[in-house]
């Protein structure tokens, strides 16, 4: 059946995958869209129609489709069984604003039913040395707390919600536990978060099938660089312009010679006094 729906269209499709994914491709007329499959067990087809048409065939659980840059506007998302016939969800109306990065996440709600939640991805600049961690509760589970190194990072996150925080880059022991009773849901596990990268981590799992997994992706290249790079102090490598440069370089070398000489004298002095 799906073949009748999808094949024979005579459409030469524009491939948008298999190339290096830029940090983002946002513009005043387009939005970025990531599609995350966090619904356990079901391989599905995901169809997105509107200002652009996207079809994701045979999408396995725990995968993320590469970001696509699409015209801003209204879209409908429908999820089919992988035979392409049975509609499992939707169509759901989704509006994608310009200059905004989104994740459309297919996942079970707290009752275990397939749902689709659009999240906005924070792709704003990250301060030099920091990392960004976004955690989304997309498992079939009650509210959870997320701890980093034993300290709460996010508290009482209910299904379909998430949070974002910028912290110094490095390795953290991450633990996700059920709010209230403290049952370990994910981890504890040591995870390293690199500077300048935003990580999007989605809880993956259903019911009592503990522990849960995660399905994640990253957006690199958001970090600011340092304010500069210092590079030398003696003036030996000076070039610059004309006489001034040469003169200054010579002065620097002269200065160096004087200081080096003084250092030798000081060392001799200390040797003498050491005896």
């Amino acid at each position, binding site marked *: 059946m799906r073949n009748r729906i999808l094949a024979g269209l005579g459409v030469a499709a524009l491939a948008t995958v298999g190339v*290096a994914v830029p940090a983002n491709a946002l513009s005043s007329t387009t939005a970025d869209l990531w599609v995350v499959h966090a619904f356990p067990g079901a391989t599905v087809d995901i169809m997105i129609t509107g200002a652009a048409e996207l079809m994701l065939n045979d999408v396995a659980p725990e995968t993320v489709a590469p970001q696509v840059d699409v015209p801003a506007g209204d879209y409908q998302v429908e999820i089919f069984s992988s035979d392409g016939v049975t509609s499992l969800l939707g169509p759901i109306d989704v509006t994608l604003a310009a200059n905004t990065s989104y994740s459309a996440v297919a996942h079970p709600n707290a009752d275990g039913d397939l749902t689709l939640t659009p999240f906005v991805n924070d792709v704003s600049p990250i301060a030099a040395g920091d990392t960004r961690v976004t955690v989304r509760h997309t498992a079939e589970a009650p509210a959870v707390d997320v701890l980093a190194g034993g300290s709460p990072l996010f508290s009482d996150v209910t299904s379909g919600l998430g949070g974002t925080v910028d912290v110094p880059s490095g390795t953290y022991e991450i633990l996700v536990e059920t709010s209230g009773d403290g049952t370990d849901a994910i981890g504890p596990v040591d995870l390293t978060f690199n500077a*300048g990268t935003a990580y999007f981590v989605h809880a993956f799992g259903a019911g009592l099938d503990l522990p849960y997994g995660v399905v994640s992706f990253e957006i690199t290249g958001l970090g600011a660089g340092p304010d500069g790079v210092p590079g030398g102090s003696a003036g030996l490598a000076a070039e610059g312009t004309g006489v001034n440069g040469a003169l200054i370089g010579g002065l620097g070398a002269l200065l160096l010679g004087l200081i080096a000489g003084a250092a030798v004298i000081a060392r001799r002095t200390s040797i003498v006094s050491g005896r």
Partner: protein
Amino acid sequence: MFSLRSGGSAAFVVGLLLLAGCSALPAEKTAGAPGIGVIAQKGAIPFEDVSISIDDFVPDPEPLSISVAGVVTDMPVRPQGLDSLGQMALPVSPFVAGWYRFAAAPAASSGATVIASHVDAIGEGLGPFAQLRNLSLGTEVFVVDSAGVTHTYRVTAVERIDKEVVPWDDYFSTAGAPRLVLVTCGGEYDPVLGSYDDNYIVTAEKVS
């Protein structure tokens, strides 16, 4: 006690992602698919899973030494962060280079690995990075990391830029093709400030 499932199984994903809306060819509607617009053909393009697994949340091996064909041999490299002024911190000696640990590592799949060193220091003279300004395009650069892997690069640009206007965010970006960026100082020397006016920046593409 616990385990985490890996984030994906890229090799086994066989779907596809097609953007038919931008096709230059005319599209047809298909009977029997009410409400469904132009879609796609199946099987032409493999769908690429870009999820990252738990195994990706580990530190990349740090660079330990750098060699530049003909001019620098096994210069030690140490990890560095930011100094109190918000600049990249550097080893004091011009004979030791610093690797900026907040950008990419040599083994990373994307981004700039940045290694910088003082061009000279009072009492020590000129360091190996004083040679950077003379490098020819195509010169090979080798970086050995803590996993024992030698990463090979080829010089694609040698630039001298006023320190005031260097676009540092770009040179230190963790996005884009894996590459090596070497930084030191040059240009006019200001004896009052004890510093140079310009930075020399060498960019090298990754060969292997």
